[in-house]
């Protein structure tokens, strides 16, 4: 009987045999179609494309084996839906339903490229056939995302065929040993695993940047049992979807990482806490855990060893603060997600008062790579204190938005211009916001700063979980600060006064400024409130909540002054702090603005330039939105 047909893998050699069998089933010239089902592509209709390709494969009479695969996020989300055809790694973008037949006939069966669907560099106009030639991918160094776009996240066999769970095997059993060795004769001792992660210099990818090995060791040495490990997938930062892409694109990498961590720490129960807004992540992880359990990779006696580990999925309730470790644990206990002061660390007393090790899911997904390729290899990438690669979600007013994985130490400029292709619509760069809502805005003069935990903190921002939100000249930085303050105020749990009341006051002041009611002295008040907040708040949410305000004051003081002193919004975003005017030369006198104006402030004869009566105008912007000739200007 083959291993594939058997239900459970009871030894390392079973897993090895399964991998060999899976590989032997692959046709050498295997043709396959990979349809991306990452969040961006799904929003653009990728599931329908996948169904159509499956139908085409089924119908085709060709005597070649073709596989249609739904795969995880490729990263270049703005150009979705993305379809990759093998052999040749041919990369098609913005594929629509009618294109399916053509791709299948020309490329899959005929081996010819459809130039129309290839990626075109917006600057040079050059077209690229293979994915790796595209500048967006060329500058990247994909480790955690390396299997995204290649494996089907719903099939554990895909992960195993690509070498999945080999790191677990390396940790648990020596290369060719049998099944039932006692723990002490196994491949790596827990201390050796921790030492390897320490050599790698891995730091928490959720934003804190705490050395992972040190956390594991503290938890391992802490007294008390049982011990718990938690995967934090409560990706709350707006503008960030790295964790979502890993959970949905390669869920087994997280499970394998947690298995290794649990072994090192001495835990037999794990939890993955997934954000409520990500129902597909929950589904994928549940499916993955179920498949791993069936094969004996999760559960009692993993791969026939004496190591046992179970994982449970918990769905969040929709509270940003639950990304904070103590709040998350409170939520796992079925309580409201309020953080507590960390006089006692969670590694000593966390979930249910037991030693608990919490890491972000991206951190967990990095672990198998470190075990497989060695801590030294990982430490060879990055800067002195920030090692390895980091996934960022590069979004906002940028040409190529999507997920990017880059070595630590790369400059912001390279990410934005070489990978991101610069600012959209030929606009001017103003700032990049890193670190989520409690991060900061970094201006153009610091674009050559290196992406590194310490460097970003020095600039008044932080690494955070990895959102990179690019803002152009049309973005008002005071309004950005107000937006984030609004967000944090709404998400503040209300437990401690500086956060609950301080943020409300800051929001009040910022709202005044954006409405044109700003007073001299407001900025000083904001600074004072920020200082109290960061010095006295109970948890990281409150302590960093002033960052957006402080960083915008630090780098864009002139915009605050323009609002307060001149009652003018330089970015022309704050309603009432600029006016609408009609450009007489561009106006064709079509009458659309006149018809749509809710207060009849626009006058003019047909086919001659119209005029806005500034006395009547309420600055609602309807004319600006409706004008087909962009003749309405903000001044």
């Amino acid at each position: 009987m083959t291993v594939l047909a058997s239900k459970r893998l009871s030894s390392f050699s079973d897993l090895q045999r399964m991998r060999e069998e899976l590989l032997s089933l692959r046709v050498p010239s295997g043709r396959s179609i990979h349809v991306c089902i990452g969040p961006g592509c799904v929003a653009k209709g990728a599931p329908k494309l996948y169904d159509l390709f499956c139908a085409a494969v089924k119908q085709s009479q060709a005597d070649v084996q073709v596989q249609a695969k739904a795969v995880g996020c490729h990263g270049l989300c703005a150009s979705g839906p993305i379809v990759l055809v093998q052999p040749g790694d041919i990369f098609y973008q913005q594929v629509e339903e009618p294109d399916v037949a053509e791709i299948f006939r020309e490329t899959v069966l005929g081996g010819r490229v459809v130039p129309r669907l290839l990626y075109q560099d917006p600057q040079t106009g050059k077209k690229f056939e293979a994915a790796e030639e595209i500048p967006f991918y060329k500058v990247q160094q994909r480790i955690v995302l390396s299997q995204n776009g290649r494996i089907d996240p719903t099939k554990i066999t895909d992960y195993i065929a690509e070498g999945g769970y080999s790191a677990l095997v390396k940790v648990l059993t020596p290369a060719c040993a049998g099944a039932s060795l006692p723990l002490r004769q196994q491949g790596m001792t827990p201390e050796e695993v921790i030492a390897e992660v320490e050599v790698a210099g891995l730091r928490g990818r959720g934003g804190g940047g705490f050395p992972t090995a040190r956390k594991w060791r503290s938890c391992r040495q802490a007294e008390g049992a049982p011990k718990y490990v938690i995967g934090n997938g409560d990706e709350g930062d707006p503008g960030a979807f790295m964790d979502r892409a890993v959970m949905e694109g390669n869920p087994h990498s997280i499970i394998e990482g947690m298995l290794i961590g649990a072994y090192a720490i001495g835990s037999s129960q794990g939890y993955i806490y997934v954000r409520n807004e990500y129902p597909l992540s929950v589904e994928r992880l549940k499916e993955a855990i179920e498949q791993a359990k069936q094969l004996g990779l999760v559960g009692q006696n993993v791969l026939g060893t004496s190591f046992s580990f179970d994982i449970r999925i918990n769905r969040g309730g929709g509270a940003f603060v639950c990304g904070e470790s103590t709040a998350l644990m409170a939520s796992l206990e079925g309580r409201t997600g309020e953080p507590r002061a960390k006089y006692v660390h969670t590694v000593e007393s966390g979930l249910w008062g037991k030693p608990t090790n919490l890491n972000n899911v991206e951190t967990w997904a990095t672990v198998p790579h470190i075990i497989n390729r060695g801590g030294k290899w990982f430490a060879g990438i990055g800067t002195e204190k920030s090692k390895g690669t980091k996934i960022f979600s590069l979004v906002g007013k940028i040409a190529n938005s999507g997920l990017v994985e880059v070595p630590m130490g790369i400059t912001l400029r390279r990410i934005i211009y070489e990978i991101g292709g610069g600012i959209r619509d030929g606009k001017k760069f103003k700032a990049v916001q890193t670190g989520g809502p409690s991060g900061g805005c970094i201006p153009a003069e610091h674009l050559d700063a290196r992406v590194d935990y310490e460097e970003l903190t020095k600039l008044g921002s932080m690494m955070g979980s990895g959102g990179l939100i690019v803002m152009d000249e049309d973005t008002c930085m005071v309004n950005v600060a107000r937006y984030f303050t609004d967000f944090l105020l709404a998400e503040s749990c209300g437990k401690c006064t500086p956060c609950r009341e301080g943020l409300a006051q800051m929001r009040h002041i910022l709202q005044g400024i954006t409405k044109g009611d700003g007073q001299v002295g407001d900025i000083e008040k904001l600074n004072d409130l920020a200082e109290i907040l960061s010095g006295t708040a109970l948890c990281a949410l409150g302590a960093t909540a002033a960052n957006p305000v402080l960083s915008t004051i630090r780098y864009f003081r002139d915009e605050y002054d323009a609002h307060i002193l001149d009652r003018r919004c330089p970015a022309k975003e704050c309603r009432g702090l600029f006016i609408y005017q009609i450009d007489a030369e561009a106006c064709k006198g079509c009458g659309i603005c006149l018809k749509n104006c809710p207060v009849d402030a626009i006058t003019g004869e047909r086919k001659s330039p119209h005029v806005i009566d500034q006395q009547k105008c309420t600055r609602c912007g309807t004319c600006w939105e409706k004008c087909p000739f962009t003749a309405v200007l903000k001044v």
Partner: protein
Amino acid sequence: MSQGSSLIEQIVDRYDRDVGMLIPMMQDLQAECGYLPGDGLRALAKRLDVPLTRLYAVATFYASFRLAPKGAHEVTLCMGTVCYLKGSPRISQAISNEFKVAPGGTTRDGLFTFQVVNCMGACAVAPVMVVDGKYYDGVSPASALEVLYELAANETVADKEAEP
């Protein structure tokens, strides 16, 4: 035993009556009923032997719980940073004005419940609106309203067809 209390029994059994699984239990209850009915919460509190106030605290703390029934359709607009920068406040305004519904509320005719959320992780194709699980990318005030008008139109057709 009434149908309501047997549902609570089922949900509680699903999690071995583990109070730690209160949030998943409430999520299941909401999935079944569309919201958290008062009776259900009282029954759940009694069954788990915890004060009702604790359930109420949880229900009001987490954004995903609702204590009132929702409309026939669910409309969710993303207000995450990128969607915000790309104009979702104007979309929210347009929907509120046109259908007389504030974020978090349900239209008077029960056509849809309108929610705004802070990021759905589809930032690359912002602004994003989700209607009954279907994603609409790159929406504008006009295109968002168009989708909602279609909902209203389909609903009227369905009503007419239902009439004998």
